């Protein structure tokens, strides 16, 4: 309710009819099968990134570098796919692109993890710095070695031939493999957290690193492992964007999903069960927001404002509910 009031106030401040804007958001995201397909296309990378973040939050790390990890995943996937152009075994390269993407994201996250555990650099600054570095590498590749023959442009590298694309539902750029990948990531994570020893150690190391050390485990090593896992999921998201959605490498390949995934996990209150629903809601807002500038002449960043307001409201609500309890440690 408070969120609704806040957003309506913001809309009135911008001089836009609030009800019409909400209607557009709804119609633009769930109004037709095609729109729902677009929402799911955004849901896949968002869910993959958010699932990865569950691991790092569990061990009390702020993996702010998801954006860069996703970019490096996309870069690695593109490298493999470029290799596969004009080969006789396109399927082999298409499949190989995904482990490569996970490797790219994982390595990039490992960089931030090592800076944290060995170098003593706070993971927020390490991750953020690496995000910008990854963006630099991406632009360098698009404008330099991987540029479209003849012209280098913001529209990205030359598109891959169709045999290197993931399949897609007709009319939209949604690939069933991507949805399957996101669903599998969710399932694996549920299993990990509920039944595996590793999931337990992550949680223990996050809550009390000293105790874990006394039990003969090395918290630093688990921190790096959690980072690598998170990075691998983010890298996969990047791979899906390249092979399934854009079919080439573009400058905005990560589309801010890395940062948005952090909000998704926070609004889910760090619980894996809520992640798919929250990611779906955020994807709706993002896709629905695309129409706002054309119809109402207001900026599409309204979606971001609503998302932020929701997370803030959730933070307030959680604080309200455990007013008597212990405040959570800095996550």
């Amino acid at each position, binding site marked *: 309710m408070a969120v609704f009031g806040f957003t309506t106030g913001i809309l009135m401040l911008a001089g836009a009819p609030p009800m019409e804007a909400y209607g557009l958001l709804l119609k633009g995201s769930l109004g037709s099968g095609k729109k729902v397909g677009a929402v799911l296309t955004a849901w896949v990378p968002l869910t993959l990134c958010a699932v990865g973040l569950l691991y790092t939050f569990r061990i009390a790390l702020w993996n702010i570098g998801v954006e860069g990890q996703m970019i490096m995943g996309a870069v690695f996937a593109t490298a493999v796919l470029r290799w596969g152009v004009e080969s006789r075994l396109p399927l082999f390269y298409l499949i190989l692109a995904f482990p490569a993407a996970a490797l790219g994201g994982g390595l990039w996250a490992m960089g931030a993890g090592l800076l944290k555990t060995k170098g003593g650099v706070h993971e927020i600054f390490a991750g953020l710095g690496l995000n910008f570095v990854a963006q*630099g590498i991406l632009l360098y590749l698009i404008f330099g070695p991987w540029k479209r023959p003849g012209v280098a442009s913001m529209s990205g590298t030359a598109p891959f031939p169709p045999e290197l694309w993931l399949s897609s539902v007709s009319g939209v750029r949604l690939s069933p493999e991507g949805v399957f990948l996101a669903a599998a990531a969710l399932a694996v994570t549920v299993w990990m957290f509920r039944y595996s020893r590793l999931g337990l150690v992550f949680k223990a190391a996050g809550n009390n690193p000293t105790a874990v050390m006394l039990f003969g485990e090395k918290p630093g090593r688990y921190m790096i492992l959690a980072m690598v896992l998170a990075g691998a999921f983010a890298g996969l998201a990047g791979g899906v964007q390249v092979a399934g959605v854009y079919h080439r490498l573009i400058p905005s390949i990560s589309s801010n999903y890395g940062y948005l995934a*952090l909000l998704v996990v926070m609004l889910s209150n760090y619980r894996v069960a809520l992640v798919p629903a929250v990611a779906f809601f955020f994807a709706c807002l993002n896709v629905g927001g695309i129409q706002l500038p054309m119809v109402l002449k207001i900026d599409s960043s309204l979606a971001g404002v609503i998302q932020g307001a929701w997370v803030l409201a959730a933070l307030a609500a959680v604080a309200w509910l455990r007013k008597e309890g212990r405040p959570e440690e800095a996550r």
Partner: protein
Amino acid sequence: MSGSEWLLLFSGVVAGATPILLAALGETLTEKAGVINLSLDGTILLAAMVAFAVAFETQSAFLGCIAACLVGALVAAAVGLFSLKLGQSQVAVGFVLTLTARDLAYFLGNPYARLHGPQFSSVPIPILSDIPVLGPVLFQHNWMVYAGLGMIVLCWAYIYRTPMGLRLRAVGEDPRAAFARGENPVRLQWIYTLCGGFLVGAAGAAFSLFVKPGWGRPQGAEGTGWIALALVIFGGWHPMRAAAGAYLFSFLQVLGIYFQGWIPTVPAQVFQVAPFPLMIFTLLIIAYAQRTTIPREDRHRLRLKALLEVFSGAAPSALGKPLRPGSL
């Protein structure tokens, strides 16, 4: 380069450093009291947008600047509300606010994009600006640059030379001890969170009213909030050193423009990310310097020792660890 070109370059460095300087000073003040305001990047953008919009409507750069400061304090108040009042993680709240404030700035600022508005104009200080070298570099700017310069000294003197500053540091180091001495830690933290936000807001105004005049998407101020946060660490939570970091950063930015001219084959976007690896590298050195156990053989190397001394300086002990509401 001739002498006058060098003077022009350094004058540009001093003016260009103003926003990041103000933001770093504001954040130093807040963190000295034990509170992390992570929302800097978004706050600066929102403040820049408001500064330009208000200045455009009223045709007064001064009113725009005041409005920006108030916006900065308002976002800081949200940080205070969630962390000091509701006991939520300061990092989490700051991160959400930085994204939300940025989107809010783009959303509300849309009608003001690519317009021509008022700017701060240069006001050379009569006698001082005639001093050779120092005059053109330091005293031929607008009043916001002067305010930034003055703020360095003011912050340092306040924190280290006044009884109020002592109480501020006490709260940041050990709020319980400060409480035992009759202070109200939460109230002091509120005050310095708001004051810091006020300065961060001023940083936004400095962007849209003279360093990168106007509003647009992107505005050009994106990313500076994060650099300002890193500069606070770089400065070892000391305003003078944070200021030195801000000037160094501004100098490197200007150098980047020259480099771009020398190596035209590398796209411009690559140079724009150059500050960030540098930021990580300095943080690495600082973390090494601040470690309690430095390998003995390293201590003997004089040059390394001198370097490490420059980077020493510890974080306020209670930084980011809020007192539980009602635990006192």
